[in-house]
């Protein structure tokens, strides 16, 4: 081989002869990074930039499976398509019927609340996004979605899929977002048993098909098949979204707590399309603000498990519990926001307070 052609080695003869020093430098850099990343989150901006740099590579890494899906779709047999079409039409019809019923229920519910008009839906805006990366191990259950800050996604935002609650955003990059799934061992979501309104916390297990309810006393009323919905506490998720179904309850005398496992309703490992959700702030089912406003909905919402901040009695009939949960501020906020939403016939806000009580039973 030719000698000294570029002269690169000449100019820096010391290069590499002191690997110890270089390693010390990089080790110090790593430790400093770790320290800064753990304390105070000073590296948010850095991560934002790095995530931007990572996005193209992530797309490239996802391309084999995307290409596979694409070819699969192209060559899918006609019969399959017809069958799927038929099935979708059936589903659609069923859903339409359900929607009608839901609308009726909603109206009835609004009347029950003494509002005499339909409440607006709790979700203000939806943004679908595609999964472009999955990190699934028993330590981390994360997903990368191809939507980011340029689309308006923010930190600690609820992410759902068609089955149920999926998780929340953890780190937002410009074009991509890391989502922590409800099955991540570091994630906890405040839930409520739809049947009886019992509130607790569902914690991830690291297994994609299971969450656990570690804070239920042994005598609490929970059984297999119970539906878990979000309770609206904690400041991230609105009330009443389906989360999981209780799979098994074990009570043995050795522990004061029941061992309850539940299966997430969202197919965490199969969904390729998810949705980011924005909620109306004043809506009764909107997420109750967290006790600690600075951390917002940080994944470790566990301190909320023990004290139940809002002593709401829960006399909800089981059917209504799934759709409406007696939020901490039932009438104050809704009465305040609803006249703004509908201009016309409601009397001015002042006489509402005395007049609602006689009107309600009607």
């Amino acid at each position, binding site marked *: *081989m*030719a*000698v*000294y*052609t*570029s002269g*690169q*080695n000449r100019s820096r003869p010391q*290069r*590499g*002869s002191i*690997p*110890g020093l*270089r*390693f010390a430098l*990089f*080790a110090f*850099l*790593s*430790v*400093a*990074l*770790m320290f*800064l*990343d*753990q304390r105070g989150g000073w*590296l948010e901006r*850095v*991560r934002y930039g*790095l*995530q931007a*740099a*990572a996005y193209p*590579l*992530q797309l*490239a*890494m*996802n391309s*084999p*499976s995307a290409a596979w899906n694409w070819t699969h779709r192209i060559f899918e047999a006609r019969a399959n398509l017809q069958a799927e079409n038929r099935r979708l039409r059936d589903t659609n019809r069923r859903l339409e019927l359900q929607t009608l019923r839901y609308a009726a229920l909603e109206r009835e519910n609004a009347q029950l609340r003494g509002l005499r008009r339909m409440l607006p839906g709790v979700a203000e805006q939806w943004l679908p996004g595609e999964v472009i*990366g*999955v*990190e*699934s*191990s*028993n*330590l*981390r259950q*994360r997903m990368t979605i191809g939507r980011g800050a340029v689309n308006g996604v923010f930190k600690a935002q609820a992410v759902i899929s068609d089955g149920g609650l999926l998780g929340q955003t*953890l*780190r937002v990059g410009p074009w991509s977002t*890391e989502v922590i799934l409800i099955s991540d*061992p*570091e994630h906890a979501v405040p839930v409520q048993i739809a049947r009886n309104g019992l509130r607790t916390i569902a914690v991830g297990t*690291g297994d*994609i098909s299971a969450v656990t309810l570690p804070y239920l006393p042994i005598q609490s009323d929970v059984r297999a098949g119970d539906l878990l919905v979000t309770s609206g506490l904690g400041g991230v998720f609105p009330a009443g979204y389906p989360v999981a179904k209780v799979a098994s309850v074990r009570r043995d005398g050795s522990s004061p707590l029941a061992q309850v496992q539940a299966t997430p309703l969202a197919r965490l*490992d199969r969904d390729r399309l998810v949705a980011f959700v924005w909620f109306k702030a004043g809506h009764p089912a909107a997420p109750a603000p967290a006790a600690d406003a600075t951390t917002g909905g940080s994944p470790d919402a566990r301190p909320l498990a023990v004290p139940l901040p809002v002593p709401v009695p829960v006399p909800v009939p089981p059917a209504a519990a799934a759709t409406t949960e007696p939020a901490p501020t039932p009438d104050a906020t809704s009465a305040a926001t609803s006249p703004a939403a509908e201009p016309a016939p409601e009397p001015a806000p002042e006489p509402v307070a005395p007049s609602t009580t006689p009107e309600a039973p009607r």
Partner: protein
Amino acid sequence: MNRDSEPRGSMALTALVAVALQLIPLPALIAPARPAFVVLAVVYWSLVAPRAGGIALGFFSGLAIDVFRGAVLGQFSLATSLVAYLTIRQHLMLRNKPIFEQTLFVALMLLVWEAVAWAIDGWTGQSAAGWTRWLHILTGALTWPVIAVLLGRTHTPR
């Protein structure tokens, strides 16, 4: 030593491919058995071109893993640059050893790498349990001879 220039281009390219291989989603069943390609690439280049900045290569490819996996920034960069450093220290001794002994050394490096990551997981309060995270050491060591031959084709060490 008297080469015209260090193979920086190939190094960056292989590191990029290794990071991609490391992070491509795999079914959960076989994902724990995926070899740590990044470590293999860094060890290889530290052996072949010890003066070309293997430690920096280790640092930056480790940083890429940190970013992609959402780990604590610095976790895998520390582990990978440590592996590069140890390999560079031993490269003269290792280069002429038979492939079997090299494989043992690579297994040791993989163990060091995972142990550093494991320790940092523990210190930063992540859950670090589970034996499956150590599984890739075995598969990685078994992959080493293949990698060494493959890369050796494209770039002949002197």
